[in-house]
């Protein structure tokens, strides 16, 4: 894919930029539009109602209409707001959440940038979001925004610790930070996935299975908290803080926060898929292999990767519409008293197994 681009454009640097930006325009933006509608439909059917039905067949154009409406809205900047930071904040959040996709392998033929520190890069760039949230909350000059931003900062920083520890566990197990390499270690059938102990054989595989399930649960919970989804959405906490850090934002700036949230949901789903669920690999062989059509394999891989990602997105949606919200102190308790000790224990045991 990269070579193809380089040959077409004829310039290495430009080809690199295009390769990194391609998933954003080809995949993530259409995804965000679909996911917003999906969330409304999922919640509606959970709640015994129909959701949007008027724009298009079963309301499929609802998000498009919403975005068109938001673009036309007046862009209000509060008089007493810090204008520069206020304008900058949505861009930072938008960029940070979309930039994470650059290091995610969509299929064996396509990865934005197959850097060796891919996992580290994703962790680093997604924690950049907190800067944007604090900026937006502070610059709005609104007490609700400030409270939301401070809560959110504390939350994201705390929950990065269990995430990082679980990622470290996986790095110890796989011996690399490169997501493509990690994915390729889980090739062939689904019992080679890391959640089932990876490609290891023998006794250690069976010891690893429960540990991997634990690690998966921890990283799923803490990543949910990192992207501020229910039951950890105390930063927005509609019933307490109106809208949290983006209370004062209108029009397209608000839409950027909104789209960034959905992009974040997909990003964490992809990272979890790549780490635990075999990445882009099919759970049972490829159609392309059995048909002898090798060009089909990358597309199949893209299909599997997307389906696994969307599955976790839907899981997050179902959780959101089922669970109430935790309080800010309980949120910290969950992180510091439960997730971190357990993740450290898993880290130690897995380390012990890998050394053996």
């Amino acid at each position, binding site marked *: 894919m990269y070579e193809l681009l380089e040959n077409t454009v004829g310039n290495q640097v430009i080809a690199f930029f295009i390769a990194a930006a391609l998933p954003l325009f080809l995949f993530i933006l259409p995804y965000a539009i679909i996911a917003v509608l999906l969330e409304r439909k999922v919640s509606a059917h959970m709640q015994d109602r129909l959701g949007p039905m008027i724009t298009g067949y079963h309301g499929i154009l609802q998000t498009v209409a919403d975005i068109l409406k938001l673009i036309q809205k007046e862009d209000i900047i509060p008089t007493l707001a810090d204008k520069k930071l206020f304008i900058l904040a949505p861009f930072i959040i938008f960029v940070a959440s979309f930039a994470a996709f650059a290091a995610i392998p969509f299929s064996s033929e396509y990865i934005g940038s197959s850097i060796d520190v891919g996992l580290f890069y994703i962790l680093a760039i997604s924690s950049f979001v907190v800067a944007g949230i604090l900026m937006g909350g502070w610059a709005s000059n609104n*007490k609700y925004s400030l409270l939301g931003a401070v809560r959110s900062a504390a939350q994201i920083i705390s929950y990065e610790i269990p995430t990082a520890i679980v990622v470290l566990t996986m790095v110890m197990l796989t011996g690399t930070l490169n997501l493509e390499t990690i994915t390729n270690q889980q090739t062939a059938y689904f019992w080679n996935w890391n959640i089932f102990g990876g490609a290891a054989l023998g006794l250690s595989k069976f010891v690893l299975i429960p540990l991997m399930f634990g690690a998966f649960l921890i990283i799923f919970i803490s990543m949910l908290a990192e992207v501020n989804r229910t*039951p950890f959405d105390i930063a927005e906490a509609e019933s307490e803080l109106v809208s949290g850090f983006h209370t004062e934002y209108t029009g397209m700036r608000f839409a950027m926060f909104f789209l960034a949230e959905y992009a974040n949901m997909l990003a964490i789903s992809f990272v979890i898929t790549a780490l635990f669920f075999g990445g882009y690999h099919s759970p049972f062989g490829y159609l392309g292999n059995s048909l002898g059509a090798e060009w089909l394999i990358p597309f199949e891989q893209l299909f599997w990767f997307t389906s696994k990602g969307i599955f976790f997105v839907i899981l997050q949606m179902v959780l959101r519409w089922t669970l109430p919200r935790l309080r*800010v102190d309980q949120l910290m308790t969950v992180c510091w008293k439960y997730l971190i000790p357990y993740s450290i224990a898993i880290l130690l045991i897995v380390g012990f197994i890998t050394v053996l």
Partner: protein
Amino acid sequence: MALKTEEMVLNMGPQHPSTHGVLRLEVALNGELVLDIKPHIGYLHRCFEKHCEAMSYPQIVPYTDRMDYLASMSNNFGYAVAVERLMGIEVPERVDYIRVIMAELQRIASHLVALGTYGVDIGAFTPFLFCFRDREKILEIFEETSGARLLYNYIWVGGLAQDIHPDFVRKTKEFVDYFRPQITDLNNLLSYNKIFIERTANVGILPADTAINYGITGPNLRGSGVKWDLRKDDSYSIYDKFDFDIPVGEGKVGTVGDSWDRYYVRILELEESLKIIEQAIDNIPEGDVQEAIPKRVKPPKGSIYTRVENPKGELGYFIISDGTLNPFRVKVRAPSFVNMEVFGELCKGHFVADIITILGSIDIVLGEIDR
């Protein structure tokens, strides 16, 4: 040198998603901790009591609708009972039965709003819509009989605005059968949810003696473990004919009188109301619902205080008659207004998020607080 800190004053409302109407709270915060809270009321004041002095007794009925607008039937009921006692009117038994069924259906509807919005306050949106779906069925029953969905003007002094719709009995029975399993659903979805319990148990504890000192009534008082229900303790209409329990808070998951207890008492009361409806619906006697309505409502000189058990607590009407067609004075003891007073004390030392939890568990209606 100590860092200079300042407490932040946060103005919650009157435009806020969870103040249940136009309530303004002035909250002094130290970080997330609540130091002090001052409720400001009066945004919905409509001079109900003063209006009454310029109106004849039957004309006041539609105004009572607008106090606790989630329980209009019960408001009508209380007012009708007060004026009837002042005039010494005996209403036909059919009227009494219909009134009781209506009031209990109304209690379920009002509690459903309280429980559903409580879920939203805590962040669970789905139970809210389930509750409103079920409430919708009650509103349909009311609409068929009274013609209105919210402000019924149905229970009149001495009788009813009109007889029940032919489908009323069938639909009510269907509703009772349909609704029982929904309570279990709601319990599984919300009441026994671990996060929900964490959020509400041991939050906003209201001890029984404080509750009595503040004059708290209704589910809030029963949540504190006091067995006090006017339907039993100061019976009116025909409530003495029915067999039902008074659920009280037991501190099942926390301390007696915490937010979860107040919430759970409402859940249990749904079942009790269903029991009363079941006993009454088959025994509605035949008769004319309007035969006891007086041509001119002109009570003798004197005064009366009558109280009824509203979904939110003790609703009292104090009526002074000077022997003319208009009352000299109508004073309403609104349960929400009295229950609200303890709110500031409950909130002290809790977190910002708990303000909403406690406010939701008290279940106020601003239309009644401001009148």
